[in-house]
């Protein structure tokens, strides 16, 4: 029932929608919800650079757009580079007094494909150069827009069309790439994970990222009923279960200091998360055990990091 008191502060959020309805995202798309919440958190003084992907395609079919803030899409792999250009262009124009000086937040948005795979190089370059921007990865754990092909962010064992379940191989053979850790390795001031099932936590993190000078990286788990083979009505519940089972812990790292923003005395059994998704239905008990062991291991590491540095 009432899973988290945190969630009731909903009505303190702005009523304004910077992301319009009428977009073509699937029923129950949690990625669209993530984008909606990010837009609410940031308000109107933003410029968004978006990668090719589900959000780009469902929100901007010429001559329509769901965006009520300035928005640009260029290509699949260069979102961080485009955002770098936007951020530095704004900076130099304000410095040369060609546009009035005021706070405009540059945001890069890309999926797991456009971040962890094809977009990794541009992201690494932008983080290293230290641009003042927020990079948001909305992770639906596969190349969903092109028809559910695997990415390096697809979790171990998950079915995708390019990591199918067959006689010889059973789903994704590798473990999910740890993108927040990669971002953190660039020594940036803010890295966080978030999930739209915890809207206040997500909004707080996005607002914090906007206020911290320098690059910020936020990794948002986006439940995809179409690709995960789950019921659309369960998108919020699934996101919550991902957090409650430790599969997707919600934490932030501010200037090197870890903090689990949502923690539980005991993690729920991972089976509860898997059983609601068709992409995991082939998992054997052995595989589930192996996965749970590793998930708990990584969760413990995070707890340890969080407890350091009072």
């Amino acid at each position: 029932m009432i899973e988290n008191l945190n969630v009731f502060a909903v009505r303190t959020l702005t009523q304004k929608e910077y992301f319009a309805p009428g977009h073509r995202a699937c029923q129950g798309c949690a990625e669209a919800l993530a984008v909606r919440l990010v837009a609410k958190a940031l308000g109107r003084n933003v410029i968004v650079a978006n990668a090719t992907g589900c959000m780009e395609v469902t929100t901007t079919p010429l001559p329509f757009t769901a965006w009520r803030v300035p928005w640009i899409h260029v290509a699949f792999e260069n979102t961080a580079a485009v955002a770098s250009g936007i951020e530095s262009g704004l900076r130099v124009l304000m410095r040369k007094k060609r546009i009035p000086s005021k706070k405009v937040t540059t945001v890069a948005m890309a999926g797991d494909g456009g971040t962890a795979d094809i977009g990794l190089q541009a992201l690494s370059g932008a983080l290293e150069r230290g641009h003042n921007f927020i990079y948001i990865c909305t992770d639906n754990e596969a190349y969903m827009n092109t028809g559910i092909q695997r990415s390096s962010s697809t979790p171990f064992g998950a079915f995708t069309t390019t990591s199918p379940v067959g006689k010889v191989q059973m789903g994704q053979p590798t473990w999910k790439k740890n993108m927040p850790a990669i971002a953190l390795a660039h020594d940036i001031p803010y890295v966080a994970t978030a999930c739209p099932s915890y809207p206040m936590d997500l909004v707080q993190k996005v607002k914090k990222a906007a206020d911290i000078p320098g690059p910020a990286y936020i990794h948002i788990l986006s439940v995809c009923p179409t690709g995960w083979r789950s019921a659309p009505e369960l998108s919020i519940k699934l996101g919550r279960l991902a957090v409650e089972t430790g599969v997707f812990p919600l934490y932030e790292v501010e200037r090197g200091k870890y903090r689990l923003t949502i923690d539980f005395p005991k993690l729920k059994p991972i089976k509860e998360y898997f059983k609601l998704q068709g992409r995991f239905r082939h998992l054997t008990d052995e595989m589930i055990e192996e996965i749970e062991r590793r998930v708990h291991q990584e969760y413990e590491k995070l707890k340890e990091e969080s407890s350091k540095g009072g």
Partner: protein
Amino acid sequence: MTKPENEWTWKEIPVGNVVLEPGNTSQYRTGDWKALRPMLNKERCIHCGLCYIFCPDMSYQLDKEGYFIVDLFYCKGCGICARECPTGAITMVMEEEI
């Protein structure tokens, strides 16, 4: 009203194919997609706003009495609101032929 894509001549498209009307997808009736529609039992509603905040299609609006009312023009019938409502005030019912 923005003209549909197949009515634009090449001269009418803005330079660089930019879209100048922010949020004009709001002209598109995604409400046609649904098979199920949410129905609100006002007596059970505690005005928490979860239905509103969890809707990926921004289909809930606060009315003057403080209830969040669904806009069927956009609602895709995903059922998230019904599932997340803490008091079970929302149920999904079959769309009827009008």
